[in-house]
């Protein structure tokens, strides 16, 4: 039996418009960034007819790779294409 972990995820810009500023995502313990993103992309698809731009994922204020393992207490954020400057 696999334990599951609830991750609180912050969202921004078009992703926040569609799913709200924060969501909770339940994933198996040891899940990776790629799984989190796949889960949220499925949710977004069911809520928005317009495709959302592919985001990056940040863990603890740094861009994370798809194979980064998510740990309890990580600060996780969905980063749509940025537009500062």
């Amino acid at each position: 039996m696999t334990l599951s972990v609830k991750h609180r995820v912050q969202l921004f810009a078009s992703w926040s418009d569609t799913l709200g500023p924060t969501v909770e995502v339940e994933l198996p313990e040891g899940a990776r960034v790629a799984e989190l993103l796949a889960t949220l992309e499925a949710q977004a698809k069911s809520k928005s007819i317009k495709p959302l731009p592919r985001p990056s994922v940040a863990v603890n204020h740094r861009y994370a790779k798809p194979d980064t393992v998510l740990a309890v207490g990580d600060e996780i954020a969905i980063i749509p294409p940025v537009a500062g400057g």
Partner: protein
Amino acid sequence: MRIALVDHPLDPTALLAEVADVGSGASTLFVGTVRRTNQGRAVTGIDYSAYAPMAEAEMQRIAEEAAAKFGCTHLVIEHRLGTLLLGEASIAIAVSHERRGAAMDAQRYVIEEFKARVPIWKREHYVDGDRAWVDNAGGAVPAEPDASVGDSTGR
């Protein structure tokens, strides 16, 4: 070296004064402003919002990278959040350096990395009342009509 997200109008002159040093022979200032048109659409203003703690961390990393690459410790980066009108400054980058080439190299490095990496978003307001999230790669996503405006200082 200093970085900041601010919610008031930028004062580029103050930044230039902040980096001034009698050991530096060259100072540069870059100012990004809200442009009248973007990709052919008439713009009336822009909302800038940020994932503030990460934006500050990324700005600090970029400043440290520039210091390491170009040897410039006299470097200030400020970005404004909130609603900006036409012509208002969204970003100001001031650098001073003993050598002009390094000052200009650092200026360009900082603005290019900033545009690519710092988690800040802009929603443009158009003359026709429409709004859209616009990204630095040229993408545009129409904003949801009922979308709440994010807290511009991050959350």
